[in-house]
């Protein structure tokens, strides 16, 4: 945890912190890629299904929700609330879109990973 957050409760300090933190965790990367891929259908259930299909990793709706909530507060994604549908017991769902800052962060993180991994695949062994 960045100590700056601990020493003061003033709002602006938080934003200093937020804008300083540009890197993305792997879960965040996976969710952002899923949003890009799903385009207009990027909501909790769709994302979960896509991630499970492609990576075999089962994400819970809660985990998806709070992570996207955090990404939204960092201005990496935007979202809109959908209309209620009978299929989900009359519950609404939230649709997400990648924001420019999110695209930049995803790009930079990926680039960093690529830089770090270039030429190393062979050494990690193959399946």
């Amino acid at each position, binding site marked *: 945890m960045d100590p700056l957050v601990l020493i003061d409760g003033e709002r602006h300090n938080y934003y200093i912190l937020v804008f300083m933190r540009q890197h993305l965790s792997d879960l965040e990367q996976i969710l952002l890629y899923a949003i890009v891929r799903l385009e207009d259908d990027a909501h909790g259930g769709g994302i979960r299904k896509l991630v499970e299909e492609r990576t075999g990793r089962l994400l819970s709706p*809660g985990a998806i929700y709070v992570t996207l909530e955090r990404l939204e507060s960092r201005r990496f994604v935007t979202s809109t609330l959908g209309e209620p549908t009978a299929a989900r*017991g009359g519950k609404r769902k939230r649709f997400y879109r990648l924001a420019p800052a999110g695209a930049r962060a995803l790009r930079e993180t990926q680039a960093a990973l690529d830089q770090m991994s270039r030429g190393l695949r062979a050494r990690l062994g193959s399946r």
Partner: protein
Amino acid sequence: MTPWPQPPALARWLVARWFDGEAREVVLGDLAEEFDEQIRAGAGVHRARLRYWRQAVSSVRARRAADQLARSRHHITRKGIMRGLAIDLRFVFRGLRRQPAFAAVAILSLAIGIGANTAIVSVVRSILLTPLPVDRPDELSLVYWARPETLRTRNYSSTGARDPEGRQLHSNYSYPIYRALRDTDTPGVALAGFNFLRSVTINIGDRPPVAAGASLVSGNYFAVLRLGVAHGRPLQESDDVPGAAPVATVTHDFWMRELGGDPAAVGRSLLINGAPFQIVGVTPPDYRGLSPGGFFPPTEITAPLAAQPVLSPSWTPEQGSLFASTDRFWVRLLARRTGGVDPEQAAAPLSATLRGMAVDAGNIDAEDTSAVSVRFLPGARGLDSLRADVERPLFILVGVSGIVLLVACANLAGLMVARGMSRQRELALRRALGASRLRLVRQLLLESGVLAAAGGLAGLLLAVWTGPAIVAAVTAGLGPVAVDVRPDAAMLAITAGVALTAALLSGLIPAIRLSGRDADHLRHRAVGDTAPRLTLGRVLIAVQVATSVPLVVGAGLFLRTVVNLDAVDTGFDPRGIGIFRVDPSLTRTPSESARFYQDLLARLEAVPGMASATLIENALVSGWISNTNVEVDGETGQMYMNAVGPRFIETTGLRLVAGRALGDQDDSSARRVAVINQAAAQRWFPGQAVGRQFVAGGDPVEVVGVVADSTYESLRRPVEPTFYDSYLQRGRGPGAMFVMFRAGVPPASLEPAVRRAVLDIDRQVPVTAFRTQMAQIDETVSRERIFARLLLIFGGFTLLLASIGLHGVTAYSVSRRTNEIGVRLALGAQRAQILWLMLRQVVILTGAGLAVGLVGAWLAGPVIASMLFGVEPGDPVTLAASAGTLFAVAVLAGWLPARRAAAMDALTALGRE
């Protein structure tokens, strides 16, 4: 058709509990969608539900993890003082946890400072400030009168006082005058009579007798005092008439202790001085009579004035009744003034009545009446016989505890400033990021507040634990004292007040000091060699040294006092002597009492291990003496006296210088004789003393022997000319006496045998004040001992704190000047020079503190002068020894880190750069 399966309700509830608003809707919707999907895919209800559970739990865990993360940043989204306070608090706790040594020292020192102050202020409150537990105590007055020179009365249980103009006042009135004063028309003033009996004998059933303090009171006493009862009824007018059934009330303490707190005890009968009295009431828990202790012990039994012939037979005149006697003054007066009556105005008619009656009775000469006037003295707290004795020691303790708190606060302030220095960067950064100065002050004060709160809590425990010990310290040697130091709301308030003061004292300086740091300091730090010099911290340490000086000096003075008192030669051999008090005269006639004593001595000397036993009027080294006017060959003066039994010489181990000792033959039928001490022989009978005569109390007395000098009143007093006469030749027969015995075994081990011997002779005579002579002497020195111990503890404690500070400052300075030391070493400086370089500030700080502190100690000297013995407050040896000790400890504290500096090698020191 089977209904469509539903997701598990409990799991749904769990999710609903952790998510709210829109999040709940979205997450529950997603979960429901997933569940339906599973069913549709043919996974089976069971597996679908299992998966739902797993996803729900996982969702909740994600939410909680996110919340936890957010909580540490939550201030981001919510403002508000309370919220900010909570965050600051958490920050303070985190900081303290990170430096447990700092927190421990700070809390411990504050706990001692706060605890000492709470305990002592509570004791001051309960001894000096607590009013009587009655309605409107401020309306009460004690009614004294200014006495003229020509006063011809016999006074019982009277005490003096002085009015604001310094005139001698008299406490007692004759019964006829008391009645007349009560009947005098004084609107808005109600008068009640009372007096104290130091000891009465109580028999309850078959149990061994006990002694208790008692009061005689008029029938309207409870009404005037507005004193209620916890059980039964108060005493009333009909109880205080001749021939009324004998009744008494007991105090709550007595009722709990002797009667088991049984409400049925009201109505039962007990023997007081051998006569049956019915218990009609139990007074409220906090009531212990009008004297909390001291000259008059707390009251446990309250009986009507009419019971005087039974409860205090020694006051009864040879002829007639005490109630008719006009020359015996034994009734004290208490007044309640209602409706704001002016005391001067109220006193005028009373004075007139008093003058008339006193002149008629021949108590005073007619031309002397102008001096006679009634005076109202404040009575809200009853008699101040105890207060007068404890005020000074309490005052000293208040000063001492104040110093301790001051040192603790200065120490904490120093620690916080030093700690703040290392946090400068953080504080400056926060200022730069926009935190207001007020915000930083608040946080620093919060830090000292948290420490003071923790210290206060620990201090409260300490105070509850030490309160009784402090009462014991200031009242040592004063007999039974009824003072409560109970943890109550007031004590909590005192602690809170002291803790708050401590928080402000220790937090404000660093707060103001440190919050002023701005971004400039960020740059400074980068340079590395300009760490601040901690000027404020050093001043605080000099203050600590200065304030510890009076405590260390005081400890030294009291230690020397104790040593001097221990070294006093009493003249007799106190080891192996036991003493106790009995009073058969309360229940027996003079001749029966004399026989009781003779039986008792005979029985005691038959107890195995007993070497000899005798009687003595006033126990030796107890603070009590008797004296009388004497006349020798026409010259008059005073001599101390002490009535003793046979075998006095053997029992005390005093040396018989000339003549013979007193024996059983010296009884009431024989010629009055006395043995005198050497001081009396030199003062009154130079040359040959044996065979000479003197007049004491109107009777001729022949000197039959001379014994060596010995301590009588107290270790502090020089030996006075004293005569010892036979207890059988005193007045109307022996009264209360101490039995003094010498044993070949530890005297305390004979207590059961002694008690059995007394019980066997008379079941109505209680044994009181059983102790060894050594314990008796120790008790008179116990106050000095306790003071020496308290001052040693407090002095040592403040010295320790100052040393911690000195150590810290020197260590800081060593690390700050590492580069400089490296350069000096590289240029060829000697180790000793480096050592001195580092120690110099310790010497300067300590020297400055010592100089100021010694002046302070010198100024405080007169306060304790009267408690010292054989040493003056300005005693140069004690001052020098104290200063030397302080200096040595301080230099040692500085030497430890300074040694490290001197041991450094140049390359390492420079390499740190």
